[in-house]
């Protein structure tokens, strides 16, 4: 019984085989996780429905950002550099001095905050030309989103002492209501395009 053993399979090459497979997977692996700017497109307006009056937003409530075919930036009628865009947008969203040409503030009851004055109708409108380069367009979008996120983040830290991402659902909704400022992508216009 002790003498006659079943011949063992030599497992010495097991490591080699496993290494071979390992190297194959190492080479084919792409670790990159996809990241991107999440956006929601507006649905196609129903042609049978009349445009309601909500569409008419007062001029002071809109931050008009235009990018032309030469990738130049026009914000509220002024040519600015993209590096200034974030601060301009932040000022627009907050409107700290209740300026006349900035969004109108209305008293509103928001959970956690109580009665506060918010710029309910503030909208950021992004218009581009057919000739605009996509990279610039996305950089502008990035700045706009960054400005809004920063403002919301500051509010979250002021109120709860933690960043916006760590808030629970109700808190997030409240902050979003406080600083709403949706970014609308207008249909592009062909102004002096190629």
């Amino acid at each position, binding site marked *: 019984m002790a003498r006659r053993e079943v011949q063992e399979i030599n497992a010495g090459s097991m490591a080699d085989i496993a290494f071979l497979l390992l190297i194959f997977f190492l080479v084919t692996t*792409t670790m990159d*996780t*996809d990241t991107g700017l*999440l956006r929601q*497109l*507006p649905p196609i307006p129903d042609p049978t429905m009349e445009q309601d009056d909500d569409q008419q937003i007062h001029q002071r409530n809109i931050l008009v950002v235009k990018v032309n075919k030469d990738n130049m930036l026009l914000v509220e009628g002024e040519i600015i550099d993209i590096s200034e865009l974030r601060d301009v947008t932040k000022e627009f969203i907050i409107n700290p001095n209740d300026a006349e040409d900035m969004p109108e503030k209305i008293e509103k009851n928001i959970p956690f905050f109580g009665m506060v004055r918010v710029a309910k109708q503030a909208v950021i409108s992004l218009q581009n030309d057919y000739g605009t380069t*996509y990279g610039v*367009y996305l950089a502008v979008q990035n700045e706009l989103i960054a400005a809004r996120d920063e403002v919301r983040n500051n509010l979250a830290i002021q109120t709860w002492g933690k960043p916006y991402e760590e808030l629970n659902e109700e808190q997030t909704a409240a902050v979003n209501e406080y600083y709403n400022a949706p970014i609308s992508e207008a249909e*592009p216009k062909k102004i002096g395009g190629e």
Partner: protein
Amino acid sequence: MSKFQRSTGKKGAQKINTASLPDIVFMLLFFFMTVTVMREVELKIQVTVPDATEGKKLEKKNLASFIYIGEPLPNLQATFGSEPKIQLNDAFKEVDDIQDFIAQERESLDEADQAKMLVSLKIDKNTKMQIVSDVKMALRRANALKIMYANIPVDEITSLD
């Protein structure tokens, strides 16, 4: 062989037991097997997505469909030209094909997930907006409203070129 035996026979360095080496290698192997995502489509266009700081991670890759826009690869430019083109799955397509593509992609998802479908746009940064706008319009018509502009995550945008 004899050399080894002699050294163990005396009080030389202890031999390291390599019996657990396959286990360790297998562990690594399984790790890489699970994280590996095989490239599903073969790109026929050059896409360098722009940099951005505010990108969010794509959490559920199986809910995403991809639309690629960019110039055809240099070796394909003789046949397809150098104008930016749209690639869906493995072939060049036109804007009008997007609606069918979206319908098909939506069909392939579970019914519960269909509302969560997301379209990731991988667009070369030097593309002009005209084709991008056309695609966006087609997506709106196809009622695929959740989109994502793919980007490379960076801490700061340094240049726009």
